[in-house]
Structures are given as C-alpha cells and as structure tokens.
C-alpha cells in the first residue's frame, strides 16, 4: 500500500510541476526529479530502480539541450515514463501491467515530434502509426494468452511477439527505426531509445513466463529466428550506414535482437533470473550508449575516451555493463540448449566492432566542460556500476516472486 501512496505522490508532484511549468519551465524539471526520486522509494527492487532513476534523471537533464515548444510539459512526459518504468514490477494485475505498456508508449508519440522551436508532425505521424499497430498486436496477443485457450496459444504468442518486435524495432519489423532515428532530433531519440524500451520488454517477459505452457517450447523457435534476423540485419545495416542517427538506429535493431533472445528462458524457471538480469543489463547498456551518443550528436563536444567507453560497453567488453548483459544472455542460451543462437550473438558482436569504433571516433572530441560532456561522462559512470554484478543479480533474484502475473482466467 505504501508504494501506491508514494507512486500517487510522485504522479501528483509531476502534474503540479507540469501545470506550474506553464509559467516557470524550470519548475517542471525540479518537480520531475522530485517525482522520480519519490517513485524510486516505492520501486519493488532498489537494484533495478537505481538504474531507472539514473537513466531517467539523465533523460530529464538532456532535455535542456533542446529549445522545445513544449518546455515544461516535456519534463512531465519523461518523468511519467520513468515513474511507470519504476512501477512495472510492483503490480501483478494484468490490466495494470498492460496499462503500463501503453502509458510508457504514449508520451513518446509527442516527444518524437520535438525539434528546435517547432514540432515535426510528419515524423510524429509515421511513428504513431507504427506504435499503434504494435500496441494493438501486443494487447491482442496478451489477452489471448491470458485467456489460456490452448488452441489459440500459438496465435496469441506470435501476435504478442510481433507487437513487441514492432514496438522495440526488431527485424524484419524494424523499418521505421533507422528512418526515424535519422530524421528526428537526437534529444527525444535519446529518450525513446533508452527508457522507453524497458517496460515493453519486462511486460512481455512477465506475460510469456506467466502463460507458458508445454506449447511454448515449440513456438519459441519463432522468437529465436526473429532474434537472429534482427542481430544480423541491425549489424550489417549499420556497417554500411554513414549518418550517425541511422547507425544508432540499426544498432538498436541489433541490440533488440540480443534482448529478444533472453525471452527464450521463460520456460526454464531455473535460468529466469539470469535471463532477466542479462536482458535488463543489456537494456541499461543500450540506454547509456544511446543517451551518450545522441547527446554527442546534439552537442558535438563529447570527450573522445568516453565515447570509446560507450562503444566498448555496446560491444560487450568487460567489465562494462554491456559485457555482463551479453554474457548472462549467452550463458542462458547455452544452458537452455540454444547454442547456435549464442554463437550468432558472439559472431554479431564481432561484426559490430567496426561501426561502434567508427561512431566513437567520429563523435569523440577534446574535453569541454559542457552539458554534453557531463551527460556523456554520467553515461559512462553508469556503465561502471556493475563492475562486480552480483548485487544486481541478487536483486533480480529477490524480484522473482513478483514476476508472475495474475491472469484471472
């Protein structure tokens, strides 16, 4: 109950800040920071929550780099996404879990249109169309799975995975990602590519685990094939792309492929904590990298060693966070006897080396004390939080009793 009160306080703070920001934009920022900090204390897992808090605050700070027409409200939107992401493990109600999926998605419809002193409606409409289709597919799949009708299980599973694939940008449903990433402003993209990716994954993970039947093992091959396709298309696409935004778009496609493969563990409760920890660490690595690189694109003064550190994290170089994410997923895949997918994951890590290094090289500059410099440094520091990852894995293990969703027939 306490967590619900704290979450309510967080939302009220956010609403107040958003209203006041009409007159005092700075109030929007401070109220959003206060709201996400309040939500942190309500979060079911402090280990998970601390990452969300840090990534969320970085997202809020990065909004300062753009002269938005909705200044003040933008803090509210991002703050709301962060609060919902904090809340995702607190509830076992299917309706609330699905509502969270929608609530994280909707603010991005507005954020994606943000540009310097204007709103890019064209990009917004394109993005919204894809997200609406994704949401419809995902919710349809989730409801079919929740009903527990055996003859419709495969259909529900596939619909949910397709919805997730479209939402996250997993190939071959990835077409919107490089296009939007090349056209939209880097600041809102750094939010869409970071905090917005976490809830859809967690929701899918929880629903698939909660509804797993003996059919899941057979239909999971579909997920594995999508994951492998996404890794290859993402990485190969990025190799030949020249625009930084497009490269980062394809990088997202590849990373979401790695992430997708962690969903294969939902039938194996023994390996569930490792798979979930791996998936989340990969998402955090992706978030840090995207925030850092998009900020570097916007500010053009990111410090070169830091851009390389972000690339190393993406590549999975130890002891950075991306290494643990990939390692945990690879170990899970090997243990559940998807060795071929683990091998594809490693091959793709090798394929991605040139473009991540090129990105670091081209976006890295000399040191400047600036907002960009701070954001990139903070992103690097987050990648170092799991030099020894035990504390995080223990936290995720403690979270396991909360994973199951009540389907209610």
């Amino acid at each position, binding site marked *: 109950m306490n967590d619900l009160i704290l979450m309510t306080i967080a939302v009220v703070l956010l609403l107040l800040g958003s209203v006041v920001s009409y007159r005092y934009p700075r109030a929007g920022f401070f109220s959003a920071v206060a709201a996400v900090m309040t939500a942190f204390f309500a979060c079911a897992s402090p280990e998970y929550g601390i990452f969300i808090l840090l990534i969320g605050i970085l997202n809020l700070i990065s909004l300062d780099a753009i002269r938005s027409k909705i200044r003040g409200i933008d803090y509210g939107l991002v703050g709301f996404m962060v609060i919902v992401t904090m809340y995702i493990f607190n509830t076992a109600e299917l309706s609330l879990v699905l509502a969270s999926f929608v609530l994280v998605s909707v603010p991005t419809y507005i954020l994606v249109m943000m540009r310097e002193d204007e709103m890019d409606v064209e990009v917004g409409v394109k993005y919204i*169309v894809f997200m609406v289709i994704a949401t419809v597919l995902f919710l349809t799949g989730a409801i079919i799975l929740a009903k527990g009708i055996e003859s419709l299980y495969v259909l529900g599973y596939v*619909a949910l995975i*397709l919805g997730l694939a479209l939402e996250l940008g997993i190939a071959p449903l990835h*077409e919107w990602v490089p296009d939007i990433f090349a056209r939209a402003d880097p600041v809102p993209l750094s939010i869409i590519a970071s905090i917005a990716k976490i809830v859809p994954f967690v929701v899918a993970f929880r629903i698939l685990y909660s509804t797993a039947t003996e059919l899941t093992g057979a*239909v999971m091959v579909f997920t594995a094939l999508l994951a492998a396709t996404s890794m290859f298309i993402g990485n190969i696409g990025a190799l*030949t792309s020249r625009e930084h935004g497009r490269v980062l778009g394809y990088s997202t496609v590849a990373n979401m492929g790695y992430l997708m493969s962690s969903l294969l563990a939902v039938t194996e409760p023994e390996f569930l904590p490792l798979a979930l920890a791996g998936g989340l660490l990969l998402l955090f690595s992706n978030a840090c990298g995207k925030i850092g690189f998009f900020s570097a694109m916007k500010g053009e003064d990111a410090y070169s060693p830091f851009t*390389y550190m972000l690339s*190393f994290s993406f590549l999975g170089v130890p002891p950075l966070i991306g290494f643990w994410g990939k390692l945990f997923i690879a*170990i899970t895949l090997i243990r559940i006897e998807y060795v071929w997918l683990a091998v594809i994951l490693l091959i793709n890590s090798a394929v991605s080396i040139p473009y991540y290094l090129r990105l670091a*090289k081209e976006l890295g500059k000399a040191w400047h004390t600036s907002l960009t410099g701070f954001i990139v440094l903070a992103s690097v520091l987050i990648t170092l939080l799991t030099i020894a990852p035990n504390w995080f894995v223990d936290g995720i293990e403690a979270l396991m009793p909360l994973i199951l969703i009540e389907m209610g027939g």
Partner: protein
Amino acid sequence: MIEWIHPGLILIFGSLFIPLISNRRVKQAYFVILPVLALIDLILISKGFFGGVPSSHWSIDIVGYDLLLGRVDKLSMVFAYVFVIAALCMNVYALHINRDWEHVSAMLYAGSGLGVVFAGDLFSLYIFWEIMAWSSLFLIWFRGTRSALDAGFRYIMWHLTGGILLLAGILIHVQTTGSIEFVSFLDSWGSSMAYYLILLGFIINAAVPPLHPWLTDAYPEATVTGAVYMTAFTTKSAVYVLIRGFAGLELIMWLGAIMAMYGVIFAMLQNDGRRLLAYHIVSQVGYMVCGAGMGTAMAINGATAHAFCHILYKALLFMGMGAVLEVTGRSRFTELGGLYRYMPRTFWLYMIGAFSISGFPLFNGFVSKTMTVEASALIHQPIVWFLLEGASIGTFFCIALKLPRNVWFSEEKPVVEAKEPPINMLAGMGMLAALCIFLGIYPKPLYDLLPYPVEFVPYTSEHVLGICQLLFFAFIPFWIMRESFRGEEKIVLDTDWLVRIPGRRFIRFCEDTLIRYAEFDEKRFFVFPALLERLSKSIRAIQTGYLQDYLRIIFAIVIISLILASIGGMLI
C-alpha cells in the same frame, strides 16, 4: 586480518586517483609509489604473510560460478614479480609525461596484466584480458598522430576479435565440462571446438604469425612511454596462459620455433628503429611459446625465465630507441646517424639491452635463452634447436649491430641536433640495465622464482664458447657488409598484405555488394515512394510513400505470421 591483497587492484584502483592530484611533485611520487606498494604486497605474499605459496584467495560467486581472482603459485608469482618490477622502472621512465590519463591507462594495463596472471578461472581471466586490450589502446592513441589513430583502430579490432573467439571457446568449454577452472587443456585438446578457439584467442595476443601484425603495426605508433609499457604485458601474459593451458602441446612448439626465426627475418628489412624492435618481440616471444610447447620442466623454466628477462631488456631497448625519438622526433634509420656525440649514455644503456637480448654471457638473456635452446636439444628436436640458434644470430645482427650503428654511428657528423633525454628517462633505463647485468652475473634469485627446481648451469665452457662463436660469426659478415645495412625508405609488406591487397579487394567486393543492397533498399524506400508521394501530395500532405511502403511490409509479415501461427496452433 586481511585475507589477501590483489597487487593488480592496487595499480588499477590506485591509478584512478592520479588525475585528482594537483601538485606535480606529489603526483610523480604517487606514480612511483603505486608499483612499489604492489611490489611490497608481492614480497608479503612470497613470505607467506597471506597464507603461503601456493594458495587461493578471493573466490567470488557470480551467477553460480566461483570466480577465483587470486590463484597464487610459483608460475603466477614469477610473472607477477616481473610485471611489477617492469612497471616500477617504466613509471620512472615516464615521470616527465604530463598526460594524467596516459598514466592511468598504463596502470590499468599493468594491473589487468597482473589480473590475468592471478586469475584462477576462465571468466576472470577473460575480464582482465579484455581490460588489458582497451587500456593499452589509449597508449597508442595518446600519440595523437593520424597514423597512431589508424594503428590503434586496427590494434583494437584484432584484440576484440581475439577476445570474442576466446569468450566463445570459454563458453563452449563451460557448457561441455560445467567447470570454469583455468587448468591445463592438454588432455582435452581436440575433443571440442572450444580448445581451438581458446588457443586462437591466446596466440593472437602472443603475436604468433600470421596473427602478429597488430603488434608490429601498433607498437611503433604508440607514445614513447606507452610503447615501453606495451612491450611487457600483452605478449607475456599470453605466454603465461599458454604455459598454464597448453604446456606440452607440440603444435605450439613448432609455432614458437618458426615465430622466432620469422620475427628476425622481417626485422632485418626494417628501416624504423621501433618497428625493428617490435619484430624482435615476435621473435623472442617465439622462444617462450616454443618452450611452452615443449612442456618439459626445463623448457617451462626456460620459457618463464626468458619471459622475465625479455621484459627487462626489451623495455630497456624500447626506452633507448624511445629516448632518441623523444629528443629528435625521428626513429627511421635513414633520418638518423652519428648521435653518439650527443647521447653516449643512452647508447651504452641501450647496448646493455642489446647484449642481453643477444644472449651475451654476463647478461640476463644468456641465462634464460640457453635454457630453452638446451631443452630443445634434450628432447631431440634438431630443427627446433636450429631455428632457435639461428634466430639468436639474427637478433645480435639487428639489435646489437644494425640498429646502434644506424642510429648512433654510420655518419661522421650527427644528422640532427640532439641531447641526452630527461634524467628520469635515463634513471628508468639505468634501473633496468642494472637488473639485466645483475641477473646475468648472479641468476640465482631468478632461478629460485621459477616453477620447477633448476638443475641448469648456464656458465659452462660449452655454453659460453658456443654462444661466443655464434656471435662472432654474426659480427664478421656484418662488419664486411656494414654499408649495405643502412636503412632504406620502403614499405615491407608482411602478412598484412593479406589485409592490404587481396583483403582490400575482398572488402571492396563486400562493400560493393552491401552498397548495392543498400541502394536497392534506399530506392525501394525513397525513390519508389517518391513517385507515390507526388500522387498523394495533393490529397494529404502528411502522407508520404515511405510510410505506405513500411506498412505494406509490416502488414505482409504480420498477416503471414498470424496465418501460419493459426495453422500451426491447430496442427499442434
């Protein structure tokens, strides 16, 4: 009581405070104190303060696997000692450098090298292995030149690829055996793909030809001080893991013997002093790899002792050549000559390293190299013996004759103004030179550290006369043809021709194919929709062809998938 202190972590965590110290003198003192603390730690470990040798410390459970950060035994201790001693001398040599982050990189690099030698399991080995790769990268990039940036790029590509191969091998090994313990793989060799991948990962770092171009490409491009650090840790930690994991594997004995000769042949063709020395790392590491492959007690002792001595004299040689580069800005033989007038001390310190690497009696190379060579004779491998002895001649030829003549003599008048390097550089060189001579005259402290009891006596008339004879025969032809051994302005293509010529064509082929695909992709999304756009613009300005195209694909995939799922669901 503290259970144990990891010497590598003293350097790694200690280095993070370097940029925070504002006073230059304090910073310099702190930079020297770091390896001194690590050395004191090692002495305490040796003296049994933390439980004696062998012992195990710092076992950490991560996701059900026991990572062992502190496996202490004679093999790990001997490598740890030389890493720390070398780091101390190198830090003194680098004291005049103002770039804090270069110091941090160097200490991260040295610390992770220690992490590798104390790692008792494959996961922690891999972690420190990769930290070594990226921390050393900055030692190249801090040079700041275009060629250094490009060489660094190629360097890290090699190491990241090698790291992924190693990780793949480790994961398959863990899947097969269920164990992450880092022990000898000799009994399992050939039973699984894992061991080929692990060996491949190891020999990339050992710079075994044809997987060596990262070394000869990158080391000459590193900063003056950075190159000195790089001589010590990457290849020697690879030798350590080869001894630990593959001692007695005949394949690596042959690879090592060929490597010893290969490095020497290419070194003779070089015009750049540091590149010549880099090729000699390949050659010298060949002795160690070969020793690991022979696998007998004497060969392992020889490989270990040679790694110990090599780190000392190779660092000294790189320091000498680095000092020339520091004061003249030049390292090519065609741009140097006659510097003895300005830099006699540097010359003599360099020559101590040169005599050591050549295996002159009374220098440390003699007491280690002869052990490996003799081990090959004892197991009746005449071809290996011949390759190792032959490489000794080439080494003396290049390092003790060709390089010093081209840099310090060869011209009556110096071709460039020069002076002795800063005092700290000379001090660093002096410390290493003293160690080279001390261990050459009195090898007992080194022999006591070796993994097996040493029954080898270096100073027999047979060994001394044998080596003197060889070196004499190398000197005569050099002196007669000395004018022919001036450097030449040319590019020597090594196995990097694989990358540079057909590789370039292959890349072009791949790129062309990919670009054609990308063009098709772009046309599909931008040209065709552009036609549609013209038609639809008047109706709805916001509606572009791109969206329709995307939707068409997405709907097609979704509908086909759902139909298949429905059919599949009914069938199941």
